[in-house]
């Protein structure tokens, strides 16, 4: 694969310089290759992050550029940590995280286990199952509001068909009790295949000889499952939990389109609340502190978790 632009560049470069360029030491090449990536990440990730941290100690508001910016110290942080509404959104996020992980692991592992029975055509079905995972959560989430319509929605119709309830009698996204579950259902539908694929890789990594040995020792299938299969798949499962945990902690697009945080604030997850504070109420300083708290939480939890994961792997 030759890059025409590079070719033109080479031709335009004087021979002396070209020789110097090509004869560069490995160390210089390494730096030339890594520098643009690091530079871009510093400019678009780290610089904004530092800016966010700086803003978090001020009372700055984007919509009032002429107002004097005051240094308020830790006031934003203490206000956030003592705000009952913020804790309510944290609770919503925790509820969402727990149940999505629970269902995705349960169904994902079960599917992987079934697919690993190596029946004919399992490749085809696997490909169909993974489709939802790769699609745009915003576009799909928006369409799910249509499936969730009382009476005319396909979801309500299916539930009515199975349970015999009146399809117009419940609204998944307008009911305070059902709305959190509306999110969990769609997220589980989208992301179960992710857990399934990772579990499948785990199951396939177990050497058959272990089971043959267990068979010789007359271990029951049940025993084999709990003492061989589960421990061998555990590192893979934990990895899936790490990825899904981080992603769902940041969850934004799907929920904005599905419920927008409503009804009331029942599905207000932290990311959506943050967007309201920063881009609707324009409390920039306050929202920045909130963002820092979220990032530190994700980063902290992920670091602790990775340590635990490494310990499991080493066993």
């Amino acid at each position: 694969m030759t890059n025409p632009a590079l070719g033109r560049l080479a031709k335009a470069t004087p021979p002396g310089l070209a020789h110097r360029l090509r004869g560069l030491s490995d160390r210089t090449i390494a730096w030339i290759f890594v520098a643009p990536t690091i530079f871009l990440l510093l400019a678009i990730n780290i610089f904004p992050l530092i800016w966010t941290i700086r803003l978090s100690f001020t009372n700055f508001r984007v919509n009032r550029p002429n107002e004097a910016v005051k240094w308020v110290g830790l006031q934003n942080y203490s206000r956030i940590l003592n705000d009952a509404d913020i804790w309510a959104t944290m609770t919503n996020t925790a509820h969402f995280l727990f149940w999505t992980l629970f269902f995705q692991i349960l169904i994902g592992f079960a599917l992987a286990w079934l697919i690993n029975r190596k029946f004919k055509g399992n490749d085809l079905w696997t490909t169909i199952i993974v489709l939802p995972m790769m699609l745009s959560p915003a576009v799909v989430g928006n369409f799910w509001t249509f499936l969730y319509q009382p009476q005319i929605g396909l979801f309500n119709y299916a539930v009515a068909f199975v349970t015999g309830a009146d399809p117009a009698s419940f609204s998944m996204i307008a009911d305070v009790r059902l709305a959190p579950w509306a999110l969990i259902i769609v997220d589980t539908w989208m992301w179960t295949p992710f857990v399934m694929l990772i579990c499948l890789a785990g199951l396939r990594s177990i050497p058959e000889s272990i089971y043959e040995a267990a068979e010789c020792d007359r271990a029951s299938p049940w025993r084999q499952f709990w003492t061989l299969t589960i421990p061998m798949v555990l590192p893979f499962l934990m990895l899936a939990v790490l990825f899904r945990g981080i992603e769902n902690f940041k969850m934004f697009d799907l929920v904005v389109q599905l419920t927008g945080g409503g009804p009331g604030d029942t599905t207000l997850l932290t990311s959506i609340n943050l967007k309201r504070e920063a881009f609707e109420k324009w409390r920039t300083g306050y929202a920045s502190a909130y963002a820092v708290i979220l990032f530190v939480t994700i980063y902290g939890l992920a670091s602790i978790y990775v340590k635990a994961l490494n310990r499991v792997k080493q066993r």
Partner: protein
Amino acid sequence: MSYSVTEPSARQKWIAGILVALYAVITILPLVWIIATGFKTPSDSIAYPPKVVFQPTLEGYVNLFTTRTRQTPEYMAEHPPQTWAERIVAKYDMTIVGPSRFGARFLNSVIIGFGSTFLSVFLGTLAAYAFSRFKVPLKDDLMFFILSTRMMPPIAVAIPIFLMYRTLGLSDTHLGMILLYTAVNLSLSVWLLKGFIDEIPVEYEEAALIDGYTRFQAFRKVVLPQAATGIASTAIFCLIFAWNEYAFAVLLTSGEAQTAPPFIPTIIGVGGQDWPAVAAGATLFLLPVMVFTILLRKHLLRGITFGAVRK
């Protein structure tokens, strides 16, 4: 075939096959419904019970791509519809007055998607090669730093990026979105590509170097062709991410550079959402990704785990 204790019995296989097929059919149903709704009339789309058999129409697609106005019956009688699209909207006493914004939004998605994919794969390949082959000081720390940029909630960095872009004049521009998506995708492309390049034996390059190639030539003529499959699948993952991204798009773009995901949900018809048009837009937007997913199925696991799990 020799007897194996680990080979499931025929009955087990049947039961497993039926259960998995059942799940697959249920899980694909919403997607089938999107595609089907795109070919329904608005009244068919909200019929009760939901219509499985219906007369397909391109109304949704016509509504998606055009803007229309209602006319008086007299006007309609004087100006009979000319094209097939006009005939479709004439049923509602409407005429087509121009194209909708969907085409432009879709094109924005294409420009920003491909632009950022090219940049992130280009930069990612260089960085991944360096990390794979050279002694870079603090290599592990740098690699982890690159990965950690992915843990940031987009909204958390969106505030300063919003301010920064406003100052630099990059807000709501293609270039701004391309740079942003490139930065977000770099973590994925560096990690994935490092895995792919690690798998290419160093001996090939060493042989080339002995043959008098410079390091740069060895990289271009030996490593790049070997890594082509890896580069291609990394590119598709980057493209899918940029294609699907919503949070930055909805916060930082409003017109000029707005991509399709924030636009599609805002398609409104007469009296509420025009579901066939929304579904038509969603179909056009989702189908390319479905095709790519099928093409990528062997590398899927690797891509979604940043190279942590390889089959």
